């Protein structure tokens, strides 16, 4: 039946188009797998299976691997669908000659395995990263902060997908360029945003190691005179009666410190 399909494609279009269709089938399979994955999750959630199996040994060991039972089931089914799509795509592209197909399959099996592994690891790592980031940001009661977790998660998914696709021998140059642009954008933005922090941190390391002044000293920095209350990586706190100056460390470094000995 599959070779019928391949014949049909070849008859309708050209031999090159068969390859395109194969890729299309692969892509559709991936989307379908994702949809199924989401669907299983929501079914588990809605039917209350999640609550029912909470605390079971399997769930606990699944939890130890950073996933859950619903996650494993969903991933397996999704992978199954994806595998089907891959087989279909191979059939469409390789057309006919089942023996050649199986030869190809054995040759490509390790690569497929690595691709599947990349997807699994990517899924787990992405979810895990999101959870870790959300835990960290829990104390920050800012709705916008939750976007960071999703950002990290989908970035990892993207990279995992890229590795998997590259393993399957699909041209990923365009996606790679996109990734590079994305990574560069993030690095660039973070570098701009964190410039002052970097400077303050570098000065802070010096101040903490050498301790030119310490808590309890009376100092003057830029006409700000007072008793040092606290020094950390980024800021120095200086206090006078009624006023507390919080001075970034790079400013301390730039304008120098006057220690007052009376």
């Amino acid at each position: 039946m599959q070779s019928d399909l391949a014949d049909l494609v070849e008859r309708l279009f050209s031999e090159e188009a068969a390859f395109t269709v194969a890729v299309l089938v692969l892509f559709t399979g991936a989307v379908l797998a994702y949809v199924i994955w989401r669907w299983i999750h929501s079914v588990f959630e809605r039917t209350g299976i999640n609550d029912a199996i909470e605390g079971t040994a399997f769930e606990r060991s699944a939890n130890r691997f950073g996933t859950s039972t619903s996650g494993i089931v969903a991933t397996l089914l999704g992978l199954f669908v994806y595998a089907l799509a891959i087989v279909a795509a191979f059939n469409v592209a390789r057309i006919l000659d089942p023996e050649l197909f199986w030869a190809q399959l054995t040759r490509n099996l390790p690569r497929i395995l690595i691709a599947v592994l990349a997807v699994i690891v990517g899924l787990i790592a992405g979810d895990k990263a999101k959870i870790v980031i959300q835990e960290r940001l829990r104390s920050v009661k800012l709705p916008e902060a939750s976007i960071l977790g999703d950002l990290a998660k989908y970035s990892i998914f993207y990279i995992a997908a890229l590795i998997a696709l590259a393993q399957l021998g699909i041209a990923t140059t365009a996606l790679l360029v996109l990734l590079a642009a994305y990574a560069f954008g993030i690095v660039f933005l973070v570098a701009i945003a964190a410039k002052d922090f970097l400077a303050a941190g570098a000065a802070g390391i010096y101040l903490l190691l050498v301790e030119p002044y310490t808590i309890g000293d009376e100092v003057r920095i830029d006409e700000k005179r007072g008793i040092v209350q606290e020094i950390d990586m980024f800021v120095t706190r200086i206090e006078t009666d009624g006023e507390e100056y919080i001075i970034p460390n790079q400013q301390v470094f730039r304008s120098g410190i006057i220690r007052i000995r009376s």
Partner: protein
Amino acid sequence: MTGLGAVLDDIVEDIDSILLFTQDDGTFERFDDEETEITVVATENAVDAEQFVSLPLQFNDLDGRIRYGIEGAMDAELISEGDEVVCLTTFIDSGAIDTIIRVRADQFSHTGLYDLFVNSRADSEVVRDVFEVAIELGKKGQKGKPVGALFVVGDAGKVMNKSRPLSYNPFEKSHVHVGDPIVNVMLKEFSRLDGAFVISDGGKIVSAYRYLEPAAEGVDIPKGLGARHMAAGAITRDTNATAIVLSESDGMVRAFKAGELILELDPEEY
């Protein structure tokens, strides 16, 4: 049985709020349909209650626990002055609720127990960590012998200016914070030294071996406490620091703020 029921009914009649001292999900769920406002008071919000007051220590004495809960709830405006509050708590270490206490929120004189932890200059975690160190030290002592110690927490700059070193400062150029795992051991060793530990707002141990020189005139602490407590009371009156003292003679942990004794704990109970 009717007499007992009537007494219990009387206790919970016309109340404005409930303070529930529990971390147990099951206990909390039993109050799902309760119409009176419920505030959960516990060391952590394990039941995801909407109204929550965080206990810094698992106060073993009922008085301190309820006092802290009420002052905390009042500070967060969960209850207001004059409210009739019923506290449900555990008195005997069984885990289940076994005690019902009805109080008026303004019945307690304001002792500042809540302020001690939350509205101190130092971070509340730092105050809590120092308490834990002091309690630990009080329990074990130094090589089995009771030790005394004086920790001055917060406003370290001013404290340093109102004190002088008795000897070289072992914490110079070190960056040790209370709450680091190594600290218990270090402080235990250094507690042999005389003098006070000075700890900054952020928890850095600034110095050991400090001789505090505040003006002690007019500091009123309970009779019978020694020079260490007097120094603690006096330094907190002169600065915005909090002082936590482990008494060598009776083994109690006491906290001073603004020159007054705020809290007294027996380490053996924790």
